[in-house]
């Protein structure tokens, strides 16, 4: 009965069938909320979590912690476990103060990293935002740069909340708000494209991999 477990081709087909059933089961939510959807949702979450645990053990904990500690005589790696467990003391009323020790260490790391991150990420962006010549460049580039400057100034004006915006400033600010809406529209359009792409991926799997290749035996 379980011969297919040792046959790679049969196993491949069984995996495709299982994936197709999972896909169809998950798409039953399009009709309405139901127990089939919940069942397959839990299967998916269970698989993802199980695989994450395996990968964390295989790629990180075993080669970087367990093997050095147990097989290579570096016993002091055992202290890493107690340091890690300090995080969980946040759930104890009596000892929660000890979790602050390890949190403080990591806050320190993160704060230090933030300086490097800000400089290397935002300084080039700021520099490129300032450096937009409208003279001595081809006309299309000049128009593009001018447009960029106008949009940048308008949007930044919208975010001046330190004083009441009146007259010309208010008009520029309003324009900034409309321009932001253009940007949000573009992002929303891209989001639709992304969601359609995911649907296409699944429909292609059902039509091509499952029906054409597995059921009909196409090449």
């Amino acid at each position, binding site marked *: 009965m379980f011969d297919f477990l040792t046959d790679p081709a049969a196993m491949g087909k069984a995996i495709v069938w299982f994936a197709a059933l999972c896909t169809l089961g998950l798409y039953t939510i399009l009709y309405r909320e139901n127990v089939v959807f919940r069942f397959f949702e839990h299967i998916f979450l269970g698989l993802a979590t199980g695989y994450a645990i395996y990968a964390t053990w295989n790629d990180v904990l075993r080669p970087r912690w367990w093997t050095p500690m147990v097989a290579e005589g570096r016993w002091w790696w055992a202290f890493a476990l107690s340091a890690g467990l300090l995080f969980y003391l946040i759930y104890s009323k009596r000892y929660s103060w000890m979790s602050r020790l390890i949190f403080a260490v990591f806050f320190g790391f993160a704060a230090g990293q933030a300086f490097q991150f800000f400089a290397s990420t935002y300084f080039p962006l700021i520099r490129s935002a300032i450096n937009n010549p409208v003279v001595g460049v081809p006309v299309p580039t000049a128009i593009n740069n001018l447009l960029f400057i106008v949009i940048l100034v308008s949007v930044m004006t919208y975010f001046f909340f330190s004083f009441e915006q009146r007259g010309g400033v208010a008009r520029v600010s309003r324009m900034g708000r409309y321009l932001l809406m253009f940007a949000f529209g573009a992002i929303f359009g*891209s989001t639709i494209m992304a969601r359609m792409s995911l649907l296409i991926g699944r429909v292609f799997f059902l039509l091509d991999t499952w029906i054409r290749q597995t059921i009909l035996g196409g090449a």
Partner: protein
Amino acid sequence: MGFFDRLQNIDRRVLYLLLILAVGLPLIFSAPVPAPAVLPPTRSFYDTVEALANDPVRRNKLVILSANFSSSTAAESLTQTDTVMRHLMRRKLKFAIFDFVDPQGRELAQQTAEKLQNQYGYVYGRDYVNWGYRPVGAAVPTVKAMVRDIPAAIGRDITNTPLTEIPVMEGVKGVNDIAAVIEVTGSASLPVWIGYFQRTGREPVPTLFCTTAVQGPEAFPLLKSGQLQGMLVGLQGAAEYEVLLKEPGFATRGSASLSYAHFLILALIILGNVSMLLSRSRSSGSGTGGTR
């Protein structure tokens, strides 16, 4: 309820069915849609890889293929991985798969490499390696440590072999031995490379970005600032790359479905709005007082 009111209240299940037909039919029948136009970010992505392959010094360095995605964005991210990996293999560039967001990424990228390796004569260990997964909380310290000493920072590959014993890692020490970073992601993981790796060597490491369509608009400023040398946006970006590679595949076929799905959504938006306006004008014309 009048005709125009009914048009505004079509059952969502009918809309889903229409959408599945709009997506599925072009996949079954060859749809009359022109080949995707190649946009500048995709072109510069391709040109950057070509420039690496044509440079006698940089072509011997290692490309990091950062597979920071999961099966939930496979239609976009995995398709991008497939097309980009084909290009790397076609131009005989050495690469390392790495992942610090979701462990599924290292597995999906590995499966893609194994699928393609016979076609391009690639061998694991000799031409590419999989550094495996690191938890997202350890991403920044790991990437920072990689700047000086990659074998020490990564340790072992997914087969538990020390990196120092893997042929493809020969001569690869730190950031100056990296030809480029290709970040394939559906998450906000690109800043780790830009913030902690890109500008830490003798010269900036070319950074290429394969992003989901959701994140695409936010990344465009990074192209202008020179922090990105190229970008593939979603399934459409992968389709454009297939055009450049002259190897039409799933992305090209999916691109046609994408166009029809967008046509349908636009048609439904127009239909809904026109029927709403007509419904309102009829209500106000008959004196019953429609909502405004």
